[in-house]
């Protein structure tokens, strides 16, 4: 275990029966992006800083890193939080690959969170909420 934390990634892939050009529009036009992801002030320009605003009230700080039209879109996805257990710095990358029937869409989110052991020390509100929900979860699974 090191003191600088650890990097982890999430990959979600899907075959989508639409051409890359159309998916690219849904990824980069703010009004379309708002329909499936979050409200935003996105622009497909490297270095552009924008926010994603979730329905739950959370705001993500983002900066565009890569724009290769119809192929690759990458931006930072940071969720600043005083509580280290909720503080997340990450990079989201969408990769579009044409297929016979449409597009293979791949999303990879590579994230950094401070060392989990330390983070749990400050994670009081997080696990208290978690514990509060636990009984409901257990009730549903039985």
């Amino acid at each position, binding site marked *: 275990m090191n003191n600088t934390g650890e990097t982890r990634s*999430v990959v979600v892939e*899907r075959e989508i029966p*639409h051409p890359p050009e159309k998916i690219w529009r849904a990824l980069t036009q703010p009004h*379309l992006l708002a329909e499936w992801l979050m409200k935003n002030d996105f622009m497909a320009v490297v270095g552009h800083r924008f926010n994603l605003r979730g329905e739950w009230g959370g705001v993500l700080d983002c900066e565009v890193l890569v724009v290769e039209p119809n192929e690759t879109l990458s931006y930072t996805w940071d969720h600043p939080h005083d509580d280290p*257990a909720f503080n*997340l710095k990450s990079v989201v990358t969408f990769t579009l690959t044409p297929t016979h029937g449409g597009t293979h869409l791949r999303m990879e*989110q590579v994230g950094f969170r401070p060392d989990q052991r330390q983070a749990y020390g400050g994670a009081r509100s997080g696990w208290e909420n978690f514990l509060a929900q*636990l*009984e409901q979860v257990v009730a549903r699974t039985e």
Partner: protein
Amino acid sequence: MATSHDLLFRTLADPTRRALFERLCREGEQTVAALTARAGVSQPAVSKHLGVLKQAGLVRDRHAGRQTHYSAQLAALAPLIDWTSQMTGFWQSRFDDLEDLLKRMDQ
């Protein structure tokens, strides 16, 4: 993964056990006697609950003289609050909405 979830859920589903675990999280290491004084149940019952928490990896015990001290092991909760599993669910659901949008864009 599913097995470790099941064990954690089962262990923390009991309100008395959960209360003991929460106190150890909040207040740090404590003896069985100190926990019993505020638990509202007998010392054997407290010891039994602590044994179950220990089996799930949620607490650790330390013997000092005649006293046994227990402390919370928050890392045991990692499988449940791991951000990667949360985000995977998030993106799957967003991609569902993306596909709905793409269908509407045809019309």
